[in-house]
């Protein structure tokens, strides 16, 4: 009964979203002036099949849990102040918690503007501007593939990593000799629902996880008229886990410190992208009161895209991720767990091929196939499940997307 109600609610919700999107897309199509009110949106639906892991679902069947719907607005309050907000509905199966989210809801203050400099302060809920795809990770037509490299863009951390409640500062500088510079700084915390905690910590955990303030910095540089752009990002984030007396886990603290570097080349036909990550993951408590683990993980990917013509683009990518750079094959992990956790939970490599075809300026289809090795980025990461997650697993997905 509750299952059918849930299903009915889901379809009602999808119907309301579609009606709103259609109405707003008609309004947006009529807007040919510099109207202070802007409305945009997108809808994407796909099918995804995973063989050998619970990446999307537990039964391994073909899934339609590949839905992304978003609607946003921007209103220019005055020359220097602007309001912007976006709501998204996401359904990715086990990848993250299904449901509606307020993606961002902010006031943008253009604090300083000249021909060379621009400074903006964003206050409220903001999306992380730091990594190459952090602000567009669930904007289907603006990310390179349906599934992003999980070492850097781990779906289990989506709701924590996508942004925060607080403030972000952006400074851009343009120099006719040296090029374009961007500096971003943000400080905020992510509200974590119990369902989000379940995705990462498993359904066995009953306590509360709280995100303490995190700080992120990024710097980007594009030389004058260059096809290249280079970036550097730093992140420091802490979480507290408060257990309940009846559960298996105890109070704990987690800390992430991420350092990434990236480079992108945007040519007329070829495009190359690479990001490298070093992540320090510190765990105190949680499993037992005296548990202490301080891992330095590493990962990175190289991605090439080739535009065959204006409509068809093919993509290939290879990614490696190691949860502990001193235990790349995961042998120590297996030893520490007395053989319960297989070594392949210490790494995850992904070889991917795909294409996108643009039917028009706002209608596109993406398709891709991933050959995965390892299970370090499968939820719940604190409680690996070797029964369903094999060392070698595959994913293919097709997604149709429309935006306005």
């Amino acid at each position: 009964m509750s299952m059918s109600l849930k299903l009915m609610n889901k379809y009602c919700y999808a119907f309301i979203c579609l009606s709103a999107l259609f109405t707003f897309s008609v309004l947006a199509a009529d807007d040919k002036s510099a109207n202070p009110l802007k409305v945009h949106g997108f809808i994407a639906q796909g099918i995804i099949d995973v063989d050998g892991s619970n990446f999307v679902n537990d039964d391994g069947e073909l899934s339609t849990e590949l839905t992304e719907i978003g609607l946003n607005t921007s209103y220019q309050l005055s020359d220097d102040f602007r309001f912007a907000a976006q709501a998204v509905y996401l359904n990715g199966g086990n990848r993250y918690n299904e449901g509606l989210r307020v993606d961002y809801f902010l006031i943008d203050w253009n604090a300083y503007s000249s021909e060379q400099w621009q400074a903006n302060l964003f206050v409220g809920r903001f999306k992380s501007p730091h990594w190459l795809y952090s602000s567009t990770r669930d904007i289907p037509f603006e990310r390179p593939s349906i599934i992003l490299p999980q070492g850097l863009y781990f779906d289990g951390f989506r709701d924590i990593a996508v942004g925060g409640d607080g403030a972000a500062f952006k400074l851009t500088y343009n120099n006719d000799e040296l090029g374009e510079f961007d500096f971003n700084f943000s400080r905020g915390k992510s509200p974590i629902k119990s369902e989000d905690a379940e995705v990462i910590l498993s359904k066995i955990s009953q306590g509360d996880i709280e995100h303490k303030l995190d700080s992120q910095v990024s710097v980007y540089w594009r030389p004058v008229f260059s096809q290249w752009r280079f970036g550097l990002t730093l992140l420091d984030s802490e979480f507290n886990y408060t257990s309940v007396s009846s559960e298996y886990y105890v109070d704990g603290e987690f800390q992430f410190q991420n350092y990434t570097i990236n480079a992108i080349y945007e040519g007329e036909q070829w495009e190359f992208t690479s990001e490298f990550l070093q992540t320090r993951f510190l765990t105190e408590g949680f499993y037992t009161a005296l548990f202490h683990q301080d891992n330095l993980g590493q990962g990175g990917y190289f991605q090439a895209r080739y535009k065959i013509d204006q409509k068809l683009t093919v993509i290939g990518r290879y990614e490696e991720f190691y949860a502990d750079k001193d235990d790349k094959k995961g042998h120590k992990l297996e030893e520490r767990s007395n053989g319960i956790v297989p070594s392949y939970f210490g790494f995850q490599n992904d070889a991917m091929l795909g294409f996108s075809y643009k039917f028009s300026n706002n209608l596109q289809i993406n398709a891709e196939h991933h050959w995965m090795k390892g299970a370090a980025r499968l939820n719940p990461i604190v409680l690996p499940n070797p029964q369903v997650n094999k060392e070698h697993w595959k994913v293919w997905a097709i997604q149709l997307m429309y935006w306005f």
Partner: protein
Amino acid sequence: MVFAILIGSPVTHAIDVITNITADTASITTAQLRRIYSMRQVKWANGVPIAVFVLPSNNILHQKFCKETLRLFPYQLDRIWNKLTFSGMGIAPTPVSNMEELIKAVKSTTGAIGYIENINEVSDVNVLKIDE
């Protein structure tokens, strides 16, 4: 209101950049144009906010303007604009369907900028000299 575009002999012109008269500028550099179209400069020197108008991404004039004038590929601009629009960090230019609409929008919008081609004379806008 009827807006007068005086079309002369069919001489092929390079792409011209036009602005609303409130922009108060007679020339512009390629680097500055690139900043404006990539939304890295949002106000004119006189403090008037810049309203950027563009033709659709698959329009031939738009593609020519991106590649020859801005030295950017159209997909690069689409990417910058989509990122701003869907992250809440900024706004994208306002798209218009054709050159007539673009001229009309630039004439009637404070601080507006746009581009035209093969038009000998257009009244009530600034036609900017582009410096390298």
